[in-house]
């Protein structure tokens, strides 16, 4: 067993996903505390080798890249096989993944297989007495638990998006790069990837937006998201939603903000007709400024907001849109 930290980096199309940088940031810190090196692994189809080299600038001492057609689309079984082989070779003390649809899908299986401690959806990680310690919000964010691994051997954690700082970029940083062979037989994995369909939001991406306008059940129907679109256009904002609005079929899942949706950290989050349930605030909470518009003065959202207006959004939003337009034009 080494003192090394292995991170599972991720691709987002032709780029490294932002979570790769978050993982490098915390991974570097933990590796330094343990006196080990930071090793990164990237898997995917064509282009993975080239992309992986970029992880050295994010603080990795060694980067492993697995590029193969069979890894082009994600399947649990093929990815598990490759990652597990790397675990065997590298023998890290800690494996970090992001809490994404890939990370949370591989980590529990690897942890169970290796009798490792697994800490899911962590907002911070540290080393206590040589062991991995984690902070995990539980009960939809209503409580926080601090946990510590009981084992000196492998511990695994998944990190929550936007909870941890990005890695510093150091161009020209030196590190080792290795291509690793992929020997996954399509017949042995008992599943195959068929296709991926991306839902592209119009305009600004929710995760990257400086301003987010979000709507909930209080909007009363899908057509009323038009009110928010107008405001969003003026503010160059992205439009999000609560799960209630998604469950009602008013807007698609990728617009959902919250524990089981996206985590956003804009400068301004405008919550319209959203009560502010804890599970929603898991996603909206990292925003720097929250504005709430709600007919119910007792709605929990006001406890998290900097500014609030108690009233019907149908009156508030058009006037807000108009005034913002005037201000933005001036």
């Amino acid at each position, binding site marked *: 067993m080494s003192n090394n930290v292995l991170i599972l980096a991720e691709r987002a199309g032709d780029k490294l996903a932002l979570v790769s940088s978050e993982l490098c940031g915390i991974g570097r810190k933990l590796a330094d505390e343990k006196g080990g090196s930071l090793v990164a692994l990237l898997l995917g189809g064509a282009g993975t080798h080239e992309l992986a080299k970029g992880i050295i600038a994010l603080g990795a001492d060694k980067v492993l890249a697995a590029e193969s057609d069979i890894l082009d689309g994600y399947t649990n079984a093929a990815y598990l096989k490759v990652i597990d082989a790397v675990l065997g070779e590298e023998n890290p003390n800690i494996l970090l993944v992001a809490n994404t649809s890939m990370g949370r899908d591989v980590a529990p299986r690897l942890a*169970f297989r290796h009798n490792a401690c697994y800490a899911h959806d962590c907002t911070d990680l540290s080393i206590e007495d040589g062991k991995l310690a984690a902070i995990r919000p539980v009960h939809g964010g209503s409580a926080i*638990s*601090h946990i510590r691994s009981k084992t000196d051997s492998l511990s695994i954690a998944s990190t929550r998006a936007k909870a941890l700082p990005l890695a510093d970029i150091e161009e020209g940083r030196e590190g080792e790069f290795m291509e690793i062979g992929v020997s996954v037989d399509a017949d042995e994995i008992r599943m195959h990837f068929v296709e991926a369909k991306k839902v592209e939001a119009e305009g600004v991406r929710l995760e990257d937006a400086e301003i987010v306008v979000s709507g909930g059940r209080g909007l009363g129907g899908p057509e009323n998201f038009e009110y928010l679109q107008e405001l969003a256009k003026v503010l160059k904002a992205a439009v999000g939603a609560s799960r209630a609005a998604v469950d009602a079929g008013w807007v698609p899942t990728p617009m959902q903000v919250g524990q089981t949706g996206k985590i956003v950290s804009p400068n301004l989050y405008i919550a319209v007709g959203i009560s502010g349930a804890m599970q929603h605030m898991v996603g909206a909470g990292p925003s720097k400024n929250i504005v709430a518009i709600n007919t119910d003065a007792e709605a929990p959202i006001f406890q998290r907001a900097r*500014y*609030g207006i108690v009233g019907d959004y149908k009156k508030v939003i058009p006037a807000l849109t108009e*005034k913002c337009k005037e*201000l933005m034009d001036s």
Partner: protein
Amino acid sequence: MDIIVCIKQVQDPDIPPRDFKVDEEKMDVVPPANVSPVINGFCENAVEAAINLKEEHGGKVTVMTMGDEKARDGLKKCLAMGCDEAVLLQDEAFEGSDAFATARILASAVQKLEGFDIILCGRLSSDWSYGTTALALAEALDLPSVSQLQKVEKTDSGIRCERALEDGVEVVEVSTPCLLTASNEINTPRLPSVKGILMASRKQIPVWGATDIEVDPASVGKAAATFEVTKFYKPVFDGNCEFIEGESLEDAAGALALRLREDKII
């Protein structure tokens, strides 16, 4: 098509935040009085998905849970929704089990049953939110797994799964036997019918303990946990909302825009 569904009873996630209490010393939640536990939402989605598959392709649905006596109510509800059989896994040795120990218990119970094509679980529990038990169960039984489904269909060659992703969907085909986890997009769980409730009340729910399912007591329960909880508390939020008012709501909205500009937020 024979399906096993694993469900978990949880504290109602919809209780107002002020009723959510914790005991920092015991490092546990204090359940609110007079609020009954409910079936974890994603587990109810899993039950509905299983019943739909059965209705279309035949077979039977067995639901099971590891839990206390209150967990029996959850199983009853699933029977009333249309599951055929239910099993309650209960033993002093199981208490304090973490997700891996729970997976070991479930795996042993599955092996006692007569075989299956699919195991369906929820993608995450709304209380302790480890998102671990189901996939660890797949690992324990060496089953292929596909998680967070928004759609599931039987095809000639296996099961076609649509995974709900952050930015779209992913389609994967998997062979049986397999383990799948349900996301909320997959369906809206039915309410039990009066007839269903009546039928369910006549069904026996066997209770299986460690010896029944041949689980080594040392491999489960609190002592087997791979981590320890060192601190447990409720987060505090400052709650300094400034309410913007005006002659009319339109005026308030205008004033809000000005404030945001003054603060250089817009």
